């Protein structure tokens, strides 16, 4: 039975393979060109090889490979893909045309091999390529692609490469004599040059590495390293990859000897030295009186810090479980997430949400844009958002919450009989929930252009006044609840205020294990 089933499966695959079709065809074209002319090549899928020669013409060989489900699909692919030859001897354009909407029945790549006079300038636009190779060209070279390996070999003129993914390789058999600019998002950049080359090196990476076997002398300015090899002067090699590795290697030296240029991560946990630039730092436990961590770009995840911590990141996520001491975090961007914070905290991010499960002794949390969520505040807290909600699920201490735009929601612990609270939003609603026995002096103010939609609702008996103010309506509710107490100030512009009295279950916070 098994053999029969296996035979059936094999037969099915064999028949499917028998129906699948592949078509490979070639076309050749020769075009005259001026020695100082420009060759433009555009191809979205496949490869491009441009080689400089001593001839005064452009020789193009186009290989079209089409895979289809059947012959009809291949025929459809052939009809859909074409290569255009346009221009004049000053500018030659070789462009492969693909249909704007892909037909799932077939796929195709086009491999272009182009021989040009070595003195011409070359401009290439590629998509998802297997490779782009330019060799023995003395004119300027410009390449813009999405992915694939880009190889520039023995290019004498100025060159510029812009790509996203893949790899960029510069190979200089002779000393570089013209400026180079490579800009990549995720691609690695490798530059090979003779050991005695003299050039300026400007390199940048945010999460990747800068490596070199040259004797480079220079300095970091922010994320950018500027230095020179061998002697000052010479052309400038600008290599920038946001998330990729940049390496500058002298020919004849093994990459393992490359020196790392790192300014990106410092941690006093490892003796104050530089750590390799890593996207993610994960440490389960830190036993240290004060753990300092500084990173240009890194995601930081720490389970427990048995001591205080000071973290500075240019960007990245920060996720810390328990901190027994004080906590200071300053992030240039990225969400901050904290579990149980036993001592006062001071955390800030330029952009992103801030989530604190428990802030036993309060502190301050701020974001230039994002939501602030605090599950439990045991100490006074100052919360600031440049735009986003502020939510405190339960507080047993004073809260001072201000947001530029967003709702503020505060729930006061039933264990507190009176407490000072301030909540101000420039665009949004304020909701305050207290227990029926909570006592306070309420001062709530709504400033709105739509007095019907925005109003003050209260479960307590408050004195409400309305007045016109600068074309808007000011609704003010004041009064003492349960005989009066600490002052509660609530301000909502273009929003409502809701003060409600509910029976609240006190939050039970268990102590972390020492």
């Amino acid at each position: 039975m098994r053999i029969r089933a296996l035979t059936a499966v094999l037969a099915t695959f064999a028949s499917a393979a028998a129906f699948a079709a592949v078509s490979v065809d070639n076309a050749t074209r020769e075009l005259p060109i001026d020695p100082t002319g420009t060759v433009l090549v555009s191809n979205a899928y496949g490869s491009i090889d441009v080689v400089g020669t001593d001839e005064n013409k452009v020789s193009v060989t186009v290989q079209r490979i089409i895979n289809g489900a059947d012959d009809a699909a291949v025929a459809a692919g052939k009809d859909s893909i074409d290569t255009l030859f346009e221009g004049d001897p000053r500018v030659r354009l070789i462009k492969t045309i693909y249909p704007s909407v892909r037909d799932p029945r077939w796929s195709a790549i086009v491999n272009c091999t182009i021989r040009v006079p070595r003195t011409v300038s070359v401009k290439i636009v590629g998509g998802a390529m297997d490779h782009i190779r330019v060799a023995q060209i003395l004119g300027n070279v410009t390449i813009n692609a999405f992915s694939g390996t880009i190889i520039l070999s023995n290019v004498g003129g100025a060159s510029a490469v812009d790509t996203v993914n893949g790899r960029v390789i510069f190979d200089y058999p002779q000393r570089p004599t013209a400026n180079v600019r490579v800009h990549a998002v995720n691609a690695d950049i490798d530059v090979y040059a003779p050991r005695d080359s003299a050039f300026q090196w400007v390199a940048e990476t945010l999460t990747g590495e800068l490596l070199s076997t040259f004797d480079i002398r220079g300095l970091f300015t922010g994320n950018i390293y500027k230095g020179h090899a061998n002697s000052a002067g010479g052309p400038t090699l600008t290599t920038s990859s946001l998330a990729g590795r940049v390496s500058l290697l002298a020919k004849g030296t093994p990459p393992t000897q490359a020196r790392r240029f790192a300014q990106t991560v410092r941690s006093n946990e490892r003796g104050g030295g530089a750590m390799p630039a890593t996207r993610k730092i994960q440490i389960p436990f830190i036993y240290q009186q004060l753990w300092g961590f500084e990173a240009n770009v890194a995601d930081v995840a720490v389970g427990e810090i048995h001591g205080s911590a000071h973290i500075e990141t240019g960007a990245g996520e920060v996720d810390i479980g328990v901190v027994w001491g004080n906590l200071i975090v300053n992030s240039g961007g990225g969400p901050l997430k904290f579990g149980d914070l036993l001592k006062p905290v001071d955390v800030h991010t330029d952009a992103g949400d801030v989530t604190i499960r428990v802030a036993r002794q309060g502190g301050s949390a701020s974001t230039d844009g994002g939501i602030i969520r605090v599950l439990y505040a045991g100490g006074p807290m100052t919360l600031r958002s440049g735009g986003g909600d502020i939510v405190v699920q339960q507080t047993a201490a004073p809260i001072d919450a201000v947001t530029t735009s967003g709702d503020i929601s505060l729930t006061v612990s039933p264990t507190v009989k009176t407490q000072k609270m301030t909540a101000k939003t420039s665009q949004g609603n304020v909701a305050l929930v207290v227990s029926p026995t909570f006592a306070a002096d309420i001062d709530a103010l709504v400033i709105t252009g739509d007095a019907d939609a925005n109003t003050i609702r209260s479960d307590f008996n408050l004195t409400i006044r309305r007045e016109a103010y600068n074309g808007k309506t000011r609704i003010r509710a004041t009064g003492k609840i349960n005989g009066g107490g600490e002052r509660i100030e609530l301000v909502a512009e273009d929003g409502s205020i809701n003060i409600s009295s509910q029976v609240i279950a006190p939050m039970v916070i268990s102590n972390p294990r020492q």
Partner: protein
Amino acid sequence: MSECDFMRESMPMLLTESLDPVRREHTHQHIEHCTACSDDWTAYQETWRVLEELPVVEVPARVKDRFLAQIAPPATLPSNVVPFTRRPALKWIAQAAAVVVIAGGSYFTGHRTKPVEIQRTPAQVTSVTPIGAPQSQFSIAESRVLPASLINPNIEGRPDIENVQFERASTNDEQITLAFDITSRVTVTGRPTDKSMVRLMRYVLENEDRLGPSRSRAIDWVKTTYSRPGNADPEIATALANVLRNDEHQGVRIKAVETLKTLQPSVGVSAADTRDALIEALKSDPNPAVRIKAVEALANLARTGAPLDTETLNTLRLKAGQDDENVYVRMKAAEALSNVKP
């Protein structure tokens, strides 16, 4: 002219108290002694009373303007024009004449017209059409509870929906409840995937101005309801995309983009619409949190293998290389690009 005729002519002026004292006294004495004139005087008084009870009709502005234009005196009167002098006595006479005409006309009409009589004909039932279920009567009530199946998915016009509240109708989360004020309190109950419920939710999300304060709560609720597997609906994604594009509150936009991030990727027009809204937010929203969540949502799309169009790729590429953009946004853009499979 007999004395009675003379007295009848004086009656309108007597009615308006325009007669001089001597003549007024004389007229009153005649009416007391003359039965015919006494009857006429009583009729005059009755008509005058009825006229007072008639509603005052506002003169249309157009007629008033035309009239004033006709009677307005020129700036300087020509020398041959004699100014018109008011004669109150004649005015009252004219009013009294009008009263007489109206009263006489009413009297004539009342006595000369007969009531129309309709011949009675017996009713006959020609055919009977049975109905399947009893017709539900429209109830006049302070609050009404309706199943979503009874709601037409097509919301006509722009009804003014206020005080929107969301609840779960049952513990198994299969039923949801949306309550709001329209002309009375209406509560609609149904499954989140019911078309009427989706349309109602979309209307609540997209309707501007008056729903502003409650929109953020609506988005919170949508997030918890429609992020569940099986509940995702393209119309909800479209509504959130519209909120992300149009709402002036940054806090609301943050919630909208965060909710879009949690919704399962949709297909078709809705997917393109969502993607366009995310790109727009990533390009130009002033709040960095919105841009972060937008780029994270696009990164999620790329991670799932969803094809990204050229516009999306270009925007991500632009953001990754934009020096003045927040580094975290740049990193997320790079991350999204690294997952793209062209």
